[in-house]
């Protein structure tokens, strides 16, 4: 059941948001007794990709009113593991698909056709599952048929180079969506076995035509740096997808051009997502003891485009400290929003500042931090105006005279 949402017929050629989301946890051919290398590269079953893919799709559908263009199609292909199915929190079984290369080719072709109807459309591709790397720049996504032992090693796989190239505008598809986002939530390890072969071709999604200017904004987010692993918590979503959803729901918020309907002028852009992801990923890494690092390829023109509107000012993790540090025993601090605060009501009123440094959240905005010093402490407060922008801000109030 790949189509979770399909309003293509109703929306016709109007701009729309088209998503293709694949999550493969249960690789049928990795369940067999371990065959000799190389057919399965020593890979094992996974327990996070399907639930990750489901949560990404669910988020899109839940937040559809806040996407910059209407969510028109959402194709979801899941092959959940027993662990994910047993958890039972989400309807993964109902969305189960074979996720073999033939099915992926069919869905990808339909997705591309939908995306080709209006240049102002947007696309999202999310793959969670096993991945490998053959050379410095590529990323190969292993599909469910991987390891069945028929044809070349990577017959049941697709790669990012072919995926992105085939989504470019061409004479045949001049109205291809110009804003495209790709997330490959998979390892990028480079098995030594590849060095044995003259070539390790992967399956292709499509033939690639090259004939007109490629003016897409098409960032490609890899959830691992070349040669490294991606991380997940067993039975839960991947570490990267947690950070991504935190960013999309405000952790990468910015003040942007207001919408025509007068809703708050806050949104997440491609640039702000790229800039804020490291902070959220680091925090989640600390929480789980993981070492996920992501890499972004591409972007450029159009990076300021909003990809998700926010319904209120996003929250910022703010750390406040007094300098010198000993001053926090002798001073309280008021933090007051400078705009839209007619009563000058403090957002924070800390007396004393304990713990020090003090950490908390403030809505994005401009603030004045001022200290109240208990005499005869030898400190002077000059007030400090600061701008809190996601994901985090550190305020250091100098109190030396």
């Amino acid at each position, binding site marked *: 059941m790949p189509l979770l949402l399909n309003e293509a017929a109703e929306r016709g050629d109007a701009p729309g948001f088209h998503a293709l989301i694949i999550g493969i946890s249960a690789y049928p051919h990795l369940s067999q007794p371990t065959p000799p290398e190389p057919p399965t590269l020593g890979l094992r079953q996974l327990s996070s990709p399907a639930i990750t893919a489901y949560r990404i799709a669910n988020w899109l559908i839940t937040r559809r009113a806040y996407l910059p263009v209407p969510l028109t199609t959402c194709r979801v292909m899941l092959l959940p593991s027993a662990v994910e199915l047993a958890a039972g929190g989400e309807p993964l079984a109902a969305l189960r698909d074979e996720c073999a290369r033939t099915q992926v080719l069919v869905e990808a072709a339909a997705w591309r056709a939908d995306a080709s109807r209006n240049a102002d459309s947007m696309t999202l591709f999310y793959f969670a599952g096993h991945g490998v790397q053959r050379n410095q720049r590529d990323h190969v996504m292993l599909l469910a048929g991987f390891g069945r032992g028929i044809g070349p090693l990577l017959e049941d796989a697709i790669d990012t180079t072919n995926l992105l190239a085939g989504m470019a505008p061409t004479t045949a598809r001049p109205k291809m969506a110009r804003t495209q986002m790709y997330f490959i939530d998979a390892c990028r390890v*480079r098995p030594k076995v590849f060095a044995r072969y003259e070539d390790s071709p992967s399956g292709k999604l499509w033939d690639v035509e090259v004939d007109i*200017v490629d003016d897409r904004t098409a960032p490609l987010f890899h959830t691992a740096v070349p040669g490294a692993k991606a991380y997940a918590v067993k039975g839960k979503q991947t570490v990267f997808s947690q950070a991504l959803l935190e960013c999309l729901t405000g952790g990468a918020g910015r003040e942007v051009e207001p919408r025509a309907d007068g809703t708050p002028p806050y949104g997440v852009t491609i640039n702000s997502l790229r800039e804020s992801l490291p902070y959220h990923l680091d925090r989640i890494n600390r929480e789980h003891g993981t070492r996920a690092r992501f890499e972004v390829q591409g972007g450029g023109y159009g990076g300021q485009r909003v990809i998700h509107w926010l319904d209120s000012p996003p929250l910022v993790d703010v750390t406040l400290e007094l300098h010198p540090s000993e001053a926090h025993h002798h001073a309280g601090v008021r933090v007051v929003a400078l705009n839209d605060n007619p009563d000058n009501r403090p957002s924070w009123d800390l007396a004393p500042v304990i713990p020090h440094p003090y950490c908390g959240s403030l809505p994005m905005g401009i603030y004045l931090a001022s200290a109240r010093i208990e005499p005869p402490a030898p400190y002077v407060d000059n007030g400090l105006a600061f701008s809190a922008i996601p994901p985090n801000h550190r305020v250091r109030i100098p109190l030396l005279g």
Partner: protein
Amino acid sequence: MAAETAFVLYRWLLTEYNNPAAPLTTCRLLLSPTESEISARPEIAEVAEACTLDHFLRDSTEWRRDASDDNANVTVLYLAGHALERHREEQIVLMEDFGDGIGPLLRNSISTANIFNGMAPAGRQRNIALTQLYFFDMGRTRAVESARTELMSPSLVFDVEFSNLADPRSAVIFYASSSGQMAYGYSGGPTLFGDALLACLRGGAGRREEQADGGEAWVVSVHSLARALPMYVDRIAAAAEIEQRVVIGGSVNEAIVHYLPGPPPVEVALRVDPAAAHACTWVKIWNTADELAFEGRPPAPGDTFTLPAGVYRIVVETTAPTAWATPKPRWIVVEPPEHSIKVALTDAAPAQ
């Protein structure tokens, strides 16, 4: 224009680049200027060797060797000249001696992908610089079909080692144009991309950076360049009525490139809404030290004024006779690359 732009960026590196964590240690310059470039700026004929294949291979080898002794190193490669695109992530750059008739057609050319891949961490260069910036200031028009087979043979700059090492580089590629598109320059001046790049490095891509001691610095970083450079080029291209868009490739991971001497100047536009209120609007802008940074009537539409990046309080007064109420003071954050202030006036409340 390519040689002149490379020379100007070289001068910037020598005289303005500031990164205490990675001070300028080596700077290699190869130039093949045109006669008109030499006429306009005679010193560029003296300062560098020609960008032939041999010179390029020699300097690239030495450059990689120098970059390979410490992961904290930073490398910059700026290439401008003629190029063809083999595919989206690979340009074939033609050296000065391209077309000398010796050997295969593209013997005197190099592949950008080969350079990028050859600069990755690997067994024999595991300590290579992890911050690498590539600026490919060239057109990306594709080779015609009939030339495809000949395009298979540019000269290799590096052998690329098969490695299982993780590649955590911040190795960003700034392409001057979209795939399939031309790159432009000013007649008798720099390239459009080079001009925008220099403006960004001089503050147009500045951003505030919190320091370990709690202070702040203004820096140009990979992310701030990735945000500002496409906007600068887009603005210049729009004014010149040409199509040129910066595209970013490689690994766009954050890293500080350059420390600015202070808050960079920011062009500020101020728009009064409704426009009819413009003539009776007076604006004062104060910085956080309560110093008046700007006072006057809003600039005409399309005009701008300059403020150092920072936090400001804006006070708008309406002069009589007026039908508009005086808005409340507001605080704004002014940051590069540009800032637009909208002053929205509402009808004055009717007299009771």
